[in-house]
């Protein structure tokens, strides 16, 4: 009995706090404006007053507007940086300790059983060829890819930009596998600048291009991101040898995941560079020819 008595006030205060949290100050103001406007409109009809009608109309309108335009939840950018950097540092440390020296290769859907996932392969030694799709598929849900003797020859990781790439697909309401490179070149800047407000500008350049809608003969793609919200993370990632020039920071990784699904060929992040003020990030991707 005593226990229940003690718990009761805590539950009530928690519910009260949750209720207050849900109806924040902006909502209170907008509801107040709405009700005041409705009263003014009612009185304007009763007393046939155009002044009251205008006041009522204005109040109802602004009440509705404030309710409609403020449901987005924003968090400070510093929280984003603080959450991501430790996991990138850990990933870098694991790769350094395990001694995986190869370049991170983003794998296209044909290498995976589940087409919706993204994986990156890092070989044990430098200049080792990429295993066959069948070999990768065998070890898809594992960390280490082993050869016939059971010796680890590479590692399969989920890239840091996978979820971000999924968010891109969700926002675009399509899968990158259904797009071609020209489509991607058109859609990504709008997505970055207007839809998700990730960056102020994004340019995608196809180097040595001879694209004929489906058949891609180009082998290098460069991107230039201006004033991205990930610029501080990218700057921090540059200090991590395995992250910056191989797997890439979350934003470069997300673009690589999107490209790999679009092109259908393995991709590596060749190099990245940042401007002196840190505002412009440039990343160069190399398309690997499997033949």
């Amino acid at each position, binding site marked *: 009995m005593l226990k229940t008595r003690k718990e009761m006030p805590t539950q009530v205060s928690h519910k009260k706090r949750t209720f207050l949290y849900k109806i924040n100050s902006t909502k209170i103001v907008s509801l107040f404006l709405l009700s005041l406007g409705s009263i003014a409109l009612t009185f*304007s009809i009763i007393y046939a007053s155009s002044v009251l*009608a*205008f006041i009522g*109309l204005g109040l109802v309108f602004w009440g509705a*507007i404030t309710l409609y*335009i*403020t*449901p*987005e939840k924003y968090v400070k950018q510093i929280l984003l940086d603080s959450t991501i950097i430790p996991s990138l540092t850990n990933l870098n440390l694991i790769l350094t300790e395990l001694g995986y020296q190869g370049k991170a290769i983003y794998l296209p859907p044909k290498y995976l059983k589940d087409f919706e996932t993204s994986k990156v392969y890092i070989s044990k030694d430098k200049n080792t060829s990429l295993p066959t799709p069948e070999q990768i598929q065998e070890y898809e849900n594992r960390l280490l890819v082993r050869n016939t003797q059971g010796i680890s020859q590479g590692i399969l990781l989920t890239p840091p930009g996978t979820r971000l790439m999924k968010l891109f697909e969700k926002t675009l309401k399509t899968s990158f596998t259904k797009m071609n490179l020209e489509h991607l070149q058109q859609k990504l800047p709008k997505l970055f600048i207007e839809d998700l*407000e990730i960056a102020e500008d994004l340019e995608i350049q196809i180097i040595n291009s001879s694209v004929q809608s489906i058949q891609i003969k180009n082998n290098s793609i460069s991107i230039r991101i201006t004033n991205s919200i990930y610029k501080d993370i990218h700057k921090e990632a540059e200090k991590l040898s395995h992250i910056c020039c191989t797997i890439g920071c979350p934003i470069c990784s997300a673009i690589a995941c999107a490209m790999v699904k679009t092109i259908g060929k393995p991709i590596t992040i060749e190099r990245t560079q940042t401007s002196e003020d840190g505002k412009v990030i440039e990343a160069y991707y190399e398309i690997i020819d499997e033949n």
Partner: protein
Amino acid sequence: MNFPLSFWDISLWLAFTAIILLITSEIISPFYGKTKILINKKRLRNVALVMGIIFLITMVIRIYGIITSI
């Protein structure tokens, strides 16, 4: 017990509101010093455009009325 504003009054009010909202949505900064009042810029612009379209519809109705009255 009639609503005191005429169709023309509402149309004028719509025009003013649409202009104010459009200007606000264009000049508003996406970065906020204080984050107590948060504004979704895209939604604000959508509202402004909808108001503008409603105003244009009222104008079409008005013009149609003038043409048919001749």
